């Protein structure tokens, strides 16, 4: 079975570790954590993810800028990006920020799997 590759960029290492733990435990995802936003692009080049979860508010670099870097890289331009944010509620932003989908923290596992399914196509059977 082909595991989907998820790159999660967030300075909160506790969050990335738990996400990695939870998702990889399903056996359907390979998760790479990146806690330094400035390394995100190189990490993406290196890891070649199927999807990127990107925190917006990070030290040194903004999530939006990282999205820009990834989008302008021809090798990565097609990779879907989902924002993670702590400062807006879903109601207000109608599930989009600058054309990108997003997930509001604290996000439930249920929302994450729904989101992944939506962007990566149906992931065969199984539960989280």
């Amino acid at each position: 079975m082909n595991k989907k590759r998820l790159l999660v960029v967030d300075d909160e290492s506790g969050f990335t570790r738990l996400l990695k733990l939870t998702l990889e435990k399903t056996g359907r995802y390979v998760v790479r954590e990146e806690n330094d936003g400035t390394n995100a692009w190189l990490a993406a080049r290196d890891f070649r993810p199927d999807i990127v979860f990107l925190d917006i508010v990070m030290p040194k670099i903004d999530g939006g800028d990282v999205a820009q870097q990834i989008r302008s890289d021809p090798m990565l331009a097609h990779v879907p990006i989902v924002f993670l944010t702590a400062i807006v509620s879903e109601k207000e932003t109608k599930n989009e920020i600058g054309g990108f989908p997003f997930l509001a923290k604290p996000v439930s596992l249920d929302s994450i799997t729904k989101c992944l399914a939506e962007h990566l196509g149906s992931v065969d059977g199984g539960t989280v």
Partner: protein
Amino acid sequence: MSIPPPVKNRVLIIDDNPGDIFLLREMIEEDPNSRFQVAGEAGTLEEGIRRLQERSFDVALLDLQLPDSRGLDTIVQAHAAAHDVPIIVMSEIDDEELAVRSVQMGAHEHLLKGRVDAHIVQRTLRYAVERARAEAQLARERELLQTLLENIPDRIYFKDRESRFTLINRALTALFGLHSPEQAYGKTDADFYGQEHAGEALEDELHVMETGEPLLGKVEFENLADGRKSWSLTTKLPLRDRKGGIVGTCGISREISQMKEMEEQLETERNLLRAVIDNLPDLVFLKDIEGHYLLNNMAHVRWLGTTDPADVRGRTVYDFFPDDVAADFHRGDMAVADSRKALINQEEHMVDAQGNHSWRLTSKIPWLDEDGRTVGLVCISRDVTEQKRAEERLKKANAELAENREELLRAVRNLQQAHGELREVQLQLIEAEKMKSIGRLAAGVAHEVKNPLAILKLGLEFLATQKPADEQTPEILQEMGEALERADNVIRGLLDFSAPKQLEVKREDLNAIINNALQLVRGEMKNGTDVERDLQSNLPPLPLDAGKISQVFVNLFTNALHAMDEGGLLAVRTFVKQLTGVGTNISGSRSESFRVGQNLVVAEIDDTGCGIPEDKLAKIFEPFFTTKPTGRGTGLGLSVVKTIIDLHGATIDIRNLHEAGVRVTLMFQS
């Protein structure tokens, strides 16, 4: 009744021969009708003189052969003793020479003894007494005339046909500076006066002599040769001889320089007074009790339409004004005269003889004589037309000023109102600034709190997938999950409350928003809760931010449902209302933006819940204020509602209903 005998003249006989005395007495007193009686006898000259000095005799008979005196010297002594008593000498010597000498010595008559009879004696006595009397009379008259001439201060002169002085009195002598009048005799005026007077005087005198007519009371200017000048009042008369022929002139002249000077002073004074009243622009005039003008100054003369004061004097207002106008004037004058009280500064509108209108201040003062009777009126009248006009202008200006003041006050009120509005805007700006700060704070808090929450949430969910350690573990995990949810709700509410306050306004259907919001809160409805909708179908579309208004209704419905834990009725109504007055349904700081007559769209939400404690009503819109038990509300719901409603320029009113529950009233401007 008998006529008393006439008083007889008293005769003194001075003679020492008793026989002669007897004879004389016989001749004097023989006739009972004799006017004489012998009142005394003297035998010597000495005694005769003594008796004469008694001055009680009218006539004396004197013998020249007395024992103590003989001859003519006797006459001299007797005459000296009494000048005014006529003496008749009785002599025995018929000597014409002696008779003449006797008369020259002062005797009245010389009679020869023995040659006289009663008749002669009587006649001689009579003549002597009469002549003495005539002479005394003449002497007295001459004396009086002399006294007059010498003492009168007026100057008197007599001149001959050639106007040469023949007599001048003491006053004229003094004027000419002469020692005696005789020094002037034979001289003329030209010797004493300057040519100016002398010539004129001569002409006058020639005229008097030529015509025989007197020159009476002529005022003459006299310039003396030495330079003195004076004024005099002179009368000149023709002098006639017994036959009536004119032989000269006489004149009397009185110095009147002082009078003349006084007259000139009076004239000057009169002219000064005249100058005063004639130069006054005020009308000044005096009228008698019948209204005849006695004195008018030039201003009044001109006002009456003439230039000559003589045209006015003695006439009345009736001569210058139509009868009805004149009658009015006259009545006014008479009222003052009758009242005897001065009328001061009466303002009146007048039309003069030329028809010119003016406003005048007139004073009329009764003119009283020494006995206090009113004999006329003194009037003075001033033209105050200009002042009157200025007064009118002032009044108008004052009125305009008052009007301007009103406008100013209005402007000030407007300014105050504008100021109030500005203050409110300022407060709103401050509020907005505050909200921005809160927004930044909220964003920071959200970030810092939500990240840990995210970790906790993922962690809980991870644990939930593990095999539980004991049977309580799932319940504990459940509790932890709910707590996490609550924390997340608080942060989310804070974000909503502080979210950027900009509306995306479109024309929206309020009813649709309400229906949608009801849909969203369906999950909060307990069993036994009914919803009643009464939404007016043809509401006008309103300028609203649909998302935010939806949040308003969600919050309000949520509150209502939370208040009805045991179930109840949630009633929602919408309708259009025309504002008829600012009533109790409108509250909040925006109520002044509503105007009477405006159409409003009203939404009412009633519940049948527990209501709001009255003492908490005032605080319900404050952030973090809640009446809900801990864990059920964030305390931000109504704050968010109020903020959104204010942004829409709408109002919200929340009050307890009498029966039970709460009514929320929202009003939107259409």
